[in-house]
């Protein structure tokens, strides 16, 4: 029986890359459809995600699922190879806890710290570092959050492993350093060196250029604002 699996995504979105990573980890073949999210979302996307009108959307045999974490749980329940969640209900609850923490607390805090204006920066950076420290404690010296293999928390924290480093390079700000967060920093290398992960990351130079352009835009906006 042939299965039809499609992913609607955007090349630089960590959210759609999460979905691609999970599918690749499980050896699921899929068709990728790039959406022009800033200028021209396709009618199909709007049909499949009428509530949020966002990527990623997973389409499985014609049935759409939206919201990256909901999609990841669906992928786990549908394709059993290389599980990303433990069997035990308590361990599962712990994984979901950290996934939620990474997604709802860390990401927004890091994003804010990366782009906040001068006067708000120190506070934003402090909050972001608090989040990183807490997340690091979940690693407990393991190779991945998932133990010996990549799990749901690792996938959800993909932003930290890759996007964050490039934002740091573009803004000149260092949030995640080997000195301050040795375990977490080591994890970013471990995670980033997995071949499956590498295949599901955006091109480095293109993403760096994208962030540098945003930095320039933000600086222009600030300069204009103070004129």
């Amino acid at each position, binding site marked *: 029986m042939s299965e039809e699996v499609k992913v609607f995504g955007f090349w630089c979105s960590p959210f759609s890359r999460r979905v691609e990573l999970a599918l690749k980890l499980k050896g699921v073949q899929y068709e990728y459809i790039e959406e022009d999210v800033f200028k021209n979302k396709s009618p199909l996307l709007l049909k499949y995600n009428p509530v949020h009108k966002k990527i990623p959307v997973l389409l499985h045999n014609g*049935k759409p*699922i*939206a919201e990256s974490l909901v999609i990841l749980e669906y992928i786990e329940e549908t394709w059993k190879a290389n599980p990303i969640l433990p069997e035990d*209900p*308590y361990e*599962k609850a712990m994984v979901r806890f950290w996934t*939620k*923490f990474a997604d709802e607390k860390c990401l927004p805090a890091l994003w804010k710290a990366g782009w906040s204006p001068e006067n708000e920066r120190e506070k934003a950076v402090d909050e972001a570092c608090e989040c990183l420290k807490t997340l690091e404690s979940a690693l407990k010296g393991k190779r991945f959050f998932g133990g010996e293999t990549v799990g749901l928390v690792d996938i959800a924290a993909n932003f930290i492993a890759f996007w964050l480093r490039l934002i740091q390079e573009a803004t000149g700000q260092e949030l995640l350093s080997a000195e301050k967060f040795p375990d977490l920093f080591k994890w970013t290398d471990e995670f980033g060196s997995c071949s499956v992960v590498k295949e599901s990351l955006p091109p480095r130079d293109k993403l760096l250029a994208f962030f540098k352009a945003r930095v320039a835009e933000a600086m222009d906006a600030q300069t204009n604002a103070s004129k």
Partner: protein
Amino acid sequence: MGEENKVILHGMWASPFSKRVELALRLKGVPFEYKEEDLRNKSSQLLHYNPVYKKVTVLVHNGRPIAESSLIILEYIDETWKNSLQLLPEDPYKRAKVRFWTSFIEQQLFQTMITVIKTDGEAQEKAIKEVLEKLEMLEEGMKEFFPDRNPSIDSENLGLLDLVFFSSFGLHKVREEVLGIQIIDPEKTPLLFSWVKAINQLPLVKELTPPHDKLVAFLKFIRECSQVFFNLV
């Protein structure tokens, strides 16, 4: 017997999050001990169990705590006590739909509702508009779940979506009274209106719902010190 299979719920009588967990445990017939937490003076046990968020609503099973969020706790309960009442459907696609909408209610709708409760004037008006728009989106989305537009709810078939919707909007009449606005309008969102009414009529739900006057008084109180309350539950 000791610690084996011991379940403790740390909760707060007016918190929708701990209420939904309480309801789930009762529906599943899981014996548990309930510990009421004083928000101004949280027990050292609670802080030990929930060091990351320091919030109430912690389930402790066999000495192991699960905190934040109540959705994670509810899925844990569903997976641990597998009996005739399953909170989530078996089919992965149906589960994804439930998770999508519970996430929508929790993150989009309820958060905006909190803003309505916490604010006044223009900020509140803006938030009210947003809540009403999102409730209409929920109304649309729920048509798939209740194709005959008539939610027939009983204690045997309550699910995660019912629990989350109920705990977020079950007490809409209390809020409508205190805030002077209509939240769940029987004309604009008839499905949501009949859904919440059906759940509110269940004997178990009536038993676990605090008296109307107490809730009204409490809502008025937290509007005074709103910043604090919603960071604690």
